[in-house]
């Protein structure tokens, strides 16, 4: 492990070769095998910096390979050097649109190891914020999906209505994107005065936003032609690749951890539908996410209706030491399943944290999925898989 050692000639040679390979990909336009198309790293469809190298035969993709790492920040190494309360600040940045939802599985894993359970009110507040994070995330997705096929209008509607959600999240947590609000044993603060009524009003607005989008975007003939029957993922293969969230449910797998997993969070007190679709194509994935916004609005309204009174923090020591052990907690996050495998040695900080992010597994199917599709469909397929680069690269 010589990090600071001088590179040998051999290393230099391999580095030059790697660079040459990269360069060749950029300039090699027409060969006998076909043309190389380089998409990204900066492309609106990539939600960050993702590069896709596709080998084309005419308009058809022979193979495509995503090239990642432009945003790798090494969170699994960084959290080993931090104390438990410091970790939430970091993990907020993994899936930046999911904000609060990133913190939840980690905190739950710590609570499981410490055998602490947050009070009921805290669980309700967590779940409400988790769902609002999901809605803000998916509303953004719906607007963005319009942009992928060249329709700008849905984006403006989405941005307008997402603002209501972000304002509500901000007025509780103080942060629009990185709340850092979840604590081991509860949440940082109680809800501000008048927040519950205002949020309920906004949930009604979100339901009407879904109606609007259903007409404007999903009802559009162009949109349907661009997405129906495109990028079909079979249910069996989706499982083997570890796809989760709406991508899996759009392939007909009826699996939602909010309903199926016994979690301390308050989902069990709400009555909601798990949305599935049988088609497994791009349209099904968009449709599922749209309906999920509706269901989330229902969950939030129900939970706010019977929000219990009481404390928002359990009794936890001031200096948090997590007993030795291992815990894996996974929750249904906006992009799919996000889990933290926390290994503790009884210290102030974790020994090792494996972060299982949804986008990483969701994206790993792209080399299979993009084979044989036409070039314009690359963008709609990637858009409908919906990933956040920070969630892939960690």
């Amino acid at each position, binding site marked *: 492990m010589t990090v600071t050692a001088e590179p040998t000639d051999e290393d230099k040679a391999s580095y030059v070769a*790697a660079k040459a390979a990269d360069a060749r990909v950029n300039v090699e336009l027409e060969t006998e095998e076909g043309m190389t198309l380089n998409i990204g790293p900066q492309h609106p469809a990539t939600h960050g910096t993702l590069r896709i190298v596709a080998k084309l035969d005419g308009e058809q993709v022979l193979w495509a390979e995503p090239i990642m790492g432009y945003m790798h920040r090494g969170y699994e190494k960084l959290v*080993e*050097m931090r104390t438990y309360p410091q970790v939430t600040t970091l993990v907020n940045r993994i899936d930046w649109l999911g904000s609060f939802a990133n913190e939840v599985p980690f905190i739950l894993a710590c609570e499981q190891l410490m055998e602490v359970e947050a009070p009921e009110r805290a669980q309700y507040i967590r779940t409400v914020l988790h769902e609002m994070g999901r809605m803000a995330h998916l509303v953004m997705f719906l607007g963005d999906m319009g942009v992928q096929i060249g329709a700008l209008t849905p984006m403006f509607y989405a941005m307008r209505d997402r603002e209501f959600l972000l304002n509500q999240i901000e007025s509780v947590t103080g942060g629009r994107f990185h709340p850092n609000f979840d604590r081991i044993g509860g949440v940082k603060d109680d809800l501000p005065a008048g927040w519950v009524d205002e949020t309920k009003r906004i949930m009604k607005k979100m339901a009407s936003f879904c109606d609007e989008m259903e007409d404007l975007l999903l009802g559009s003939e162009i949109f349907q032609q661009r997405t129906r029957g495109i990028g079909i993922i079979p249910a069996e293969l989706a499982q*083997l690749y570890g796809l989760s969230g709406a991508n899996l449910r759009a392939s007909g797998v009826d699996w939602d951890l909010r309903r199926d997993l016994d979690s301390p969070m308050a989902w069990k007190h709400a009555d909601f539908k798990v949305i599935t679709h049988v088609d497994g194509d791009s349209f099904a994935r968009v449709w599922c996410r749209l309906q999920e916004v509706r269901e989330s609005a229902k969950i939030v309204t129900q939970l706010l209706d019977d929000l219990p009174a009481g404390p928002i923090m359990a009794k936890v020591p001031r200096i948090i030491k997590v007993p030795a*052990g291992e815990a894996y907690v996974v929750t249904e996050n906006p992009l799919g399943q996000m889990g933290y495998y926390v290994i503790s040695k009884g210290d102030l900080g974790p020994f090792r944290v494996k972060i299982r992010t949804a986008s990483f597994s969701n994206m790993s199917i792209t080399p299979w999925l993009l084979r044989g599709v036409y070039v314009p469909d690359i963008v709609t397929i990637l858009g409908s898989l919906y990933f956040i680069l920070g969630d892939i690269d960690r």
Partner: protein
Amino acid sequence: MIRLSSADTEAPDEAIETDERREAQLAEITELVGDAVVESHIDPGHELYLRIAVDQWKSVHRRLRDDLGYKFFEFLSVIDWMPSPYGKSEDATADAGVSVTTIDDPGEMEQGYAGGDSRFQLFTRLVDIFAGSQGVVIKADITDPRDTDEPQAQSLIEVFPGANWHEREAFEMFGVRFTGHPYLQHLYLPGAFEGNPLRKDYPLLARQVKPWPGIVDVEPMPEDDDSTDDDSTDDGAEGGDES
């Protein structure tokens, strides 16, 4: 040999918790691939941990997938159980209660649930969606503790195609070679990156104390100046009435 350890055998004075669902799950798995299971552990109400022989890594996964329906591939990764020789951070000694490890005394290597006796452990988690989404964490020791440079394991890519990127990540971060992987290249890191960053003996340079490269304190600090001028250090420390 099958050693089964569960929570009640380990901590008899705790409230006896049994997890019948996971006991049944374990019984089902040991019936199928019992000869490969080295050790198991049940965290009641939470998780089932298995440790299997590494030479049957692929076949166990294949049988769990085909015969028991563990079709959902959650993740694959590696644990480096070696205590970090660098401690927690630059100010590790100041953190109250942290068991500070220094380079001289890295502490004992101690594996987690389901035991183990090697530095690197491979682990995956599989889920059976249609059996109440029950999951299982499968671990395997992948090296003899004496030779840690080139840990090897079978690639799962034929069983779970989703293991592709997970194995590439484990390869670059821990230096584990997966035999049978068709394209074992760096996933995140640049091609010529040296070292395996998630190994415990790879320092996180941003958190190491680096000496200032230039000359430190060309002139003495003003306080030092005063105290050297005054010979009586006691008066100098109180200081206020003199100036």
